[in-house]
């Protein structure tokens, strides 16, 4: 009997203990949940090192929150009420202050003395120099991005003392300062990195691919490639106000329908990539999900025609195509209205130096047919429409509609959807006659866009193979033109030329849509289109 009683008592004790544990864990779970953000995307980073070969877009997001840069951009509020970065305002991040020399050919940064890396090492100017040297020497995308701001040689970067860093300019380039606030010149923990460098790998690229060595607001707690990346707040972060979120879990969920279901059911907090239709519907629904939309700066969806491949070498054929595109249909069924229309202006002569801006083309089959006749192709011809499988949600309906429209001109097309790796290679080969593609530039200047997409240097983004000496002169001049009036005139000139010659037909300026629970605030739009968890608050 006594044994039974003790057993019952101990049994009761166990039950009580379990119950209180459950309650406590429930309470803890509740706390955990307001300080943890779960975000689901189609795919995650393929590297923790933005300088690494083939780093994908989500990898830029890693650099953004796990690493600091000397400066960052300020904020502005858009007419829609959304907070965006302001590319005209540079603000301190790792650098507390900076001073541009009187001759305008160098700048000196004073670094924060309290800044530390995640392993506790203080951040000093030699780390900045190592990181900048790395960015301009390692080759590939980072070097080319640095070059866009005339940051090209290690000799430009000088350690004055532990907390003072100088950058000398090669030429007066208005993009130099902004280029130092983009994700590429992230500050690496050079001591830690050098420990893992080898003779064959002096920049520790191997090690940094899967290990983070930064001093940013968040530490990478764990990374399972293809599955998830988990960030924890770096409580000693001094380069800005300490973020409210303590933990970020970013999971890969390849199925778009599932991402929507997860959002609606409240099992995830945020998602970036979904089909435009889902964003359109979620923004109308009265549930617990809200959608934030911002037109992506300096980006357009376009239909490109390879001017080196007849009959697209004939400007009248290109114009005919521009008049034959089913703009409204595509806007409704491919993009669901998530974009800014870039057609139907009153004329091809721009009134402002804004970019992107609409051209004067619109769906006009009669004009299109007349132009085809003038060009000598009254009976049409055969060609292919190509697009990247990865962007198929938008590109495929566009392709189908374009195919149908062009058929009315006698242009018979086959649709060619090209998977990932092949797409990049095909773009490089420049042998596709007609493509549907999207391009956006980080630095919001029209001449920057045109430099990569229309200039005769024939960069890979000049998918049309377009070369026009007069336009090149205008673009080059605009890059270094100080006088505002002259600058705007140059821009208007080359924009008009691009509309008249129409090697690519602009379609829409896409919006970046982000869907999130209604209790989430603090979203900021950034040009790199990656989430910035440092400002986000979950109520």
């Amino acid at each position, binding site marked *: 009997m006594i044994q039974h009683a003790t057993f019952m008592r101990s049994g009761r004790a166990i039950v009580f203990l379990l119950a209180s544990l459950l309650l406590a864990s429930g309470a803890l779970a509740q706390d955990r949940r307001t300080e943890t953000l779960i975000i689901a995307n189609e795919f995650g980073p393929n590297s923790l090192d933005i300088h690494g070969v083939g780093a994908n877009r989500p990898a830029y997001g890693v650099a953004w929150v796990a690493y600091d840069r000397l400066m960052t951009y300020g904020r502005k509020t858009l007419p829609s009420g959304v907070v965006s970065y302001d590319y005209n305002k540079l603000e301190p991040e790792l650098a507390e202050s900076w001073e541009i020399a009187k001759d305008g050919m160098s700048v000196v940064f004073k670094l924060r003395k309290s800044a530390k890396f995640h392993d506790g090492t203080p951040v000093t100017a030699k780390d900045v120099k190592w990181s900048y040297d790395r960015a301009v020497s390692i080759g590939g995308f980072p070097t080319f991005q640095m070059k866009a701001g005339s940051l090209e040689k290690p000799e430009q970067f000088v350690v004055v003392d532990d907390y003072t860093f100088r950058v000398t300019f090669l030429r007066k380039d208005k993009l130099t300062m902004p280029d130092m606030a983009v994700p590429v010149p992230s500050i690496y923990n050079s001591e830690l990195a050098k420990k893992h460098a080898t003779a064959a790998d002096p920049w520790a690229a191997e090690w940094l691919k899967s290990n983070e060595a930064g001093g940013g607001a968040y530490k990478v707690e764990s990374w399972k490639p293809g599955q998830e990346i988990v960030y924890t707040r770096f409580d000693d972060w001094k380069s800005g106000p300490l973020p409210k979120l303590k933990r970020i879990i970013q999971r890969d969920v390849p199925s*778009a*329908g*599932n991402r*929507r*279901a997860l959002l*609606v059911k409240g099992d995830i907090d945020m998602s970036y990539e979904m*089909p435009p*239709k*889902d964003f359109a*519907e979620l923004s109308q629904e009265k549930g617990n999900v809200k959608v934030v939309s911002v037109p992506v700066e300096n980006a357009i969806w376009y239909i490109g025609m390879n001017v080196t491949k007849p009959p697209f070498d004939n400007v009248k054929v290109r114009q005919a195509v521009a008049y034959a595109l*089913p703009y*409204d*249909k595509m806007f*409704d*069924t491919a993009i669901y209205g998530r974009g800014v229309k870039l057609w139907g202006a009153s004329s091809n002569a721009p009134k402002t130096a804004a970019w992107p801006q609409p051209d004067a083309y619109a769906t006009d089959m009669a004009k299109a047919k007349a132009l085809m006749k003038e060009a000598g192709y009254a009976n049409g011809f055969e060609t292919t429409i190509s697009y990247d*499988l990865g962007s*198929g*949600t938008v590109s*495929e*309906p566009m*392709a*189908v*509609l374009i*195919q*149908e429209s062009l058929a009315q001109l006698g242009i018979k097309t*086959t*649709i*060619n*959807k090209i*998977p990932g790796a092949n797409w990049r290679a095909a773009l490089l080969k420049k042998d596709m006659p007609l493509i549907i593609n999207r391009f956006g530039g980080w630095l919001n200047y029209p001449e920057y866009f045109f430099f990569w997409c229309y200039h005769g240097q024939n960069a890979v983004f000049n998918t049309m193979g377009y070369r026009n000496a007069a336009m090149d002169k205008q673009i080059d001049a605009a890059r270094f033109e100080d006088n505002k009036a002259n600058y705007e005139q140059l821009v208007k000139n080359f924009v008009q030329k691009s509309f008249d010659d129409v090697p690519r037909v602009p379609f829409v300026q896409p919006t970046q849509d982000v869907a999130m629970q209604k209790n989430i605030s603090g979203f900021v739009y950034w040009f790199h289109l990656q989430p910035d968890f440092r400002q986000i608050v979950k109520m």
Partner: protein
Amino acid sequence: MTAATIATAPKRPSHFRYVVGENPVTAFAFVLFGLFVLLAIFGPAIAPYDPLYTDSAAALRPPMKGHWFGTDSVGRDILSRVVVAARMDFGIALAAVALSFAIGSALGSCAGYFGGWTDRIVSRGSDTIMAFPLFVLAMGIVAALGNTVGNIVLATAIINLPFYIRVARAEVNVRRNAGFVEAARLSGNTNARILLRHLFPNILPPTMVQVSLNMGWAILNAAGLSFIGLGVRPPQAEWGIMVAEGAQYIVSGEWWVALFPGAVLMLAVFCFNLLGDGLRDLIDPRRRT
């Protein structure tokens, strides 16, 4: 005996009628198969709309009068596309299986008949294919060669080869030295003639069943390839790619885009599977299950 005194025996039901009569499910499968064949042949003629005609204003309309299966994301009539796709899917299935059967039987027969190195090479090749994860092999072939209908057929044919090779080899091997083969040889028939005229008919019974099952599997394979983007090219109508495209609309409530092609696809594969069982009962009663 005069003709008058010979009483005519009562007519026994044909074997076919007996088997089908005994098993209503098989009967159902044969009827369904017939319907599908008719659909494949006459589909494009009876479709109410042009399967390629888009009407963006009428995109994603639910099933209603005039569009009994609703419309898809660019406003095409789903009923018309489903009907027309029958030809594409049956075509793919038939071509893939016919190719597989022809090549597999030929290879297997040679292996079983000649033995020696032919046998070794063919068997090893067949084992190698079987050791592959089949769907990934199909994916690889289509990715490597390009996603045209021809390549999809080729990939499906390749992954189905081992079965036909194995069966053909087994059947021919067993009869290689049988009496009738010896007799044929002695009368001067060439090896090719022996293989084709005498040995080949023996392969048919066990493979017939598998042919039917493989046709169902070929359609599912094409659907899987479409899901990852390696299926037929748009704007072709094919059940698999319609299901794959419709899958993204399930959560947002446009269930008809995936459901109707999915149901018809399932019915077709279902029919092929049941047909396989029926054929087995018909052709080889010993192996009835």
